[in-house]
């Protein structure tokens, strides 16, 4: 939420692969919380699609890069977040 409030166009949470988390079910709980936050972002008109959760193994660099590119493309297609635009307008005023 803080990242969006500061103008982030998108945020992704990278958790461990399911079943392979050091914190056992930490990544599964994070997934549910991300779902909750997506709904909240929808409710306030920022758009839940700007937030995603990915499961990436810590050693899987190529997958990390792939996800980063995927998210980048997605955010580019969505355009700037309404909060970023509001911050820009405020700065310009």
């Amino acid at each position, binding site marked *: *939420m*803080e990242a*969006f*409030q500061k103008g982030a166009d998108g945020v992704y949470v990278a958790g461990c692969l399911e079943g392979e988390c050091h914190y056992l079910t930490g990544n599964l709980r994070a997934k549910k919380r991300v779902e909750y936050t997506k709904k909240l972002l929808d409710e*306030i*008109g920022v758009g839940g699609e700007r937030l995603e959760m990915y499961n990436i193994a810590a050693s899987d660099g190529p997958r990390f890069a792939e996800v980063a590119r995927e998210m980048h493309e997605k955010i580019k297609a969505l355009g700037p977040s309404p*909060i970023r635009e509001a*911050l820009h*307008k405020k700065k310009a005023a």
Partner: protein
Amino acid sequence: MIVAERKPIEEIIGFVQNCKKILIVGCNECVTVCYAGGKKEVGILASALTMAFMKEGKELEIKEVTLERQCDPEYLEELRGFIDEYEAVISLACGAGVQFLAEKYLETPVFPGVNTLFMGVTEERGVWSERCQGCGQCILGQTAGICPISRCAKRLLNGPCGGSTKGKCEINPELDCAWQLIIERLKKLERLDDYETLIPIKDWSTERAGGPRKLVREDLQQ
């Protein structure tokens, strides 16, 4: 504990849409435990409201405070020094806390940020269910520790009714029949004979039927 859930953001925005400076007050007790109105939820709501206002090109200054309890005057006093600086308060306490805050600060509009649901328990993480309706005359001693007032849809004192099927209630197939639970527990406790003792007609005057209730303990009063 008292179980509550956050109101839809849209409804909360409606309360403060014309404000520029508000106070969000959380409560460290029940609503913290059920993730509806503790410090964390105060922060999330503040963030959500800030963004909702920014999106509309408006600014909203928010102060976040979480009190130990909102149902005790000494904690509400902590707001005395600065509450007047704000146009409105959103309280994330249960209905009791919201009202007590409003009673103590008559000059400031106070709005509820949660819907207060029931007195209940945490069945598992993220699941709460009702256990008590505060009827004022507890009969759990006769019902094997299972409350037919809060858990039987008809609040039957001598159940089950004809709508009980395979241990489930007719109003919802997911809902356990409280009287089935009572009978099973009495069996386990080898107290099934107690089931034959009829529970007399209840005096509902100690429940809501008698109007708003009050408890006075003279030994504790100052």
